[in-house]
């Protein structure tokens, strides 16, 4: 559906070279500004996915898109303001932490529409839409698959930090999902023992902890936590006979090195969600409050044959029922 999802290279480069033109104020010129959470635009994670969605939407609408990377959390407001100064029509902000600054800016600029990725809106502001996901559902689906796939009845989750709610939701969903399909299963869960600045950025710890989990006889491992989680996937890929499960986007694309074990990913489709919301802004159908994005399981890719047909059918049913709410995830 979108431009960038085929390659691991972000679509960033081309779009940023074009940037926002000087005449965004004009009715005819459609301008999207995106402010990242602290981190880089090519983070193979939510910043990148959101940007790909924005860039895709801009391409569809024949508009323009540009991003600013946040270096210091204290600059959130300033970064948003710089797009407002340049008369952007849409401002996309990424991450929960930037939510307050986004809400403040939205109230002050009713003429501009804001999208807050991952930012749950407790109160409704008409020109601010929070793009949120039921990560617990995605985690549950993946965990359910893991419960069916494990031969040792041990599965593990190597997670970023429990300070970020979506990560916890993924992890809890994973645990409950695994138990749902396999009551005998043992779930090993661990969070990175560092501050926020390193918790998502320590692939070494991720890899070594994944190995420790494997030594504990785990054979399906969920890596959820930015680079840290990716490190876990890469480690599992090097071991024989174990599966790994990615997170957020289809990591078959973003972490090609993990293809040796990557049976699926617990997806939350930020890219598509952002693109869709921007489309709604274009046609005027957008509303304030929260918009729930798609969650689900990524395709099995090469594991299509290795996953038994019975498991596949069973999991399809679970995915359907979890999505519809028929199967509760047990995560509040």
């Amino acid at each position, binding site marked *: 559906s979108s431009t960038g999802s085929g390659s691991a*290279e972000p679509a960033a480069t081309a779009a940023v070279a074009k940037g926002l033109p000087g005449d965004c104020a004009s009715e005819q010129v459609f301008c999207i500004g995106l402010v990242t959470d602290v981190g880089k635009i090519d983070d193979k994670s939510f910043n990148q996915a959101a940007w790909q969605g924005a860039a895709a939407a801009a391409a569809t609408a024949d508009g323009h898109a540009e991003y600013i990377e946040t270096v210091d959390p204290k600059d959130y407001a300033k970064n948003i303001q710089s797009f407002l100064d340049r008369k952007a029509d849409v401002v996309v902000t990424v991450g929960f932490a930037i939510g307050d600054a986004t809400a403040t800016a939205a109230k002050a600029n009713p003429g501009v529409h804001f999208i807050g990725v991952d930012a749950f809106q407790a109160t409704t502001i008409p020109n601010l839409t929070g793009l949120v996901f039921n990560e617990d559902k995605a985690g549950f689906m993946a965990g359910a698959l893991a419960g069916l796939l494990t031969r040792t009845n041990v599965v593990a989750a190597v997670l970023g930090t429990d300070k970020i709610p979506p990560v916890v939701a993924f992890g809890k969903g994973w645990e409950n999902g695994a138990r749902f399909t396999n009551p005998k299963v043992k779930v090993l869960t*661990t969070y990175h023992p*560092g501050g926020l600045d390193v918790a998502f*950025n320590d692939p*070494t710890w*991720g890899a070594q902890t994944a190995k*420790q989990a494997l030594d*504990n006889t785990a054979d399906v491992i969920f890596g959820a936590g930015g*680079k840290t989680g*990716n490190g876990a996937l890469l480690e599992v890929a090097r071991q024989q006979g174990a599966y790994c499960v990615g997170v957020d986007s289809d990591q078959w694309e973003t972490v090609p090195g993990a293809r040796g074990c990557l049976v699926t990913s617990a997806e939350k489709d930020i890219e598509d969600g952002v693109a869709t919301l921007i489309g709604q802004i274009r046609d005027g159908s957008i509303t304030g409050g929260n918009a729930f994005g798609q969650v689900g399981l990524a395709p099995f890719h090469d594991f299509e044959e290795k996953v038994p047909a019975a498991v596949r059918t069973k999991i399809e049913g679970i995915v359907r029922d979890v999505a519809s709410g028929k199967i509760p995830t047990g995560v509040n």
Partner: protein
Amino acid sequence: MAGSLVAAFAAYGIWGFRATAVLGFAVRSSTPLALAAMCGILCERTGVIDIGIEGQMLLGAFAGFFGAAAFGVVAGVFAAVAVGALVGAFLALCAVTWRVDQIIAGAVINIAAAGFTSFLYRPGRVIGSLPAWRIPLLGDLPLLGPVLFRAQPLTYLTVVVVIGLQVTLVRTPWGRRTTAVGEHPGAADTVGIDVARYRYGNVVAGGALAGLAGALLSVEITGSFDRGMTAGRGFLALAIVIMGRWKPVAAWAAALFFGVLTGLVNQLNFGQVIDIPPQFVAMLPYATTIVVLAIFGTRVRPPAAAGRPYP
């Protein structure tokens, strides 16, 4: 040494694969720390403080990854070593020739390395990583096999480096002269030892080891590069150098101690044995280290000339 082996097997007897898992984690997580600490030891024993290890590792990881992506993993390792050595040469130039304050030179390396690798990083490359070498027979031993003898090449290399460094520092003319240069460069100078040459040589060699430690992260352990992926290991290595009292094997032991604690923390989390917040579990290795040091005290005596330019 023998005592720890006995303890390890006792643990294995009681906890089985869990002991293997924890000790395996300890060994693996200690190798980059130990190698980085060897850099610190080489530099400080020769009288140059290197707080730029973090940056050197990061550049090593960077060069290792992109070298591997372009020319294969072995070339990647060599690229990491070369870049580490190059940065070491820069540190030596600052510390010895320009007489720049050594802490500043290290800080410059850290800042520049973070900026440089972040600026130049392009995602999307994939590399294989170094395969594990299972040593025949030894690799089949219980406990010791999985923990020690099924490792990847750089891990074995680390063991060789640590023990080799210990022996050479204590037993060879080069080692004694290095010690003299770090303790009392005036004394070394007046017996005709070229202080500058020794400092250059050792700081460059140390840089190469830090680069290797970086390659360990990117080429051996993860097979990937990410910005800031050293995650403070270079600074931890500084503490390990001091805990090991500037002795290679002792520093390695300190790194292992740390690794065991961190591995235990993971294991506790896995087992959900205790229901306490992960932050408290995470503090455990660090708090334990402080407590142990406070109880036993370490009247450490750094190389007397560390940090001072000569003449």
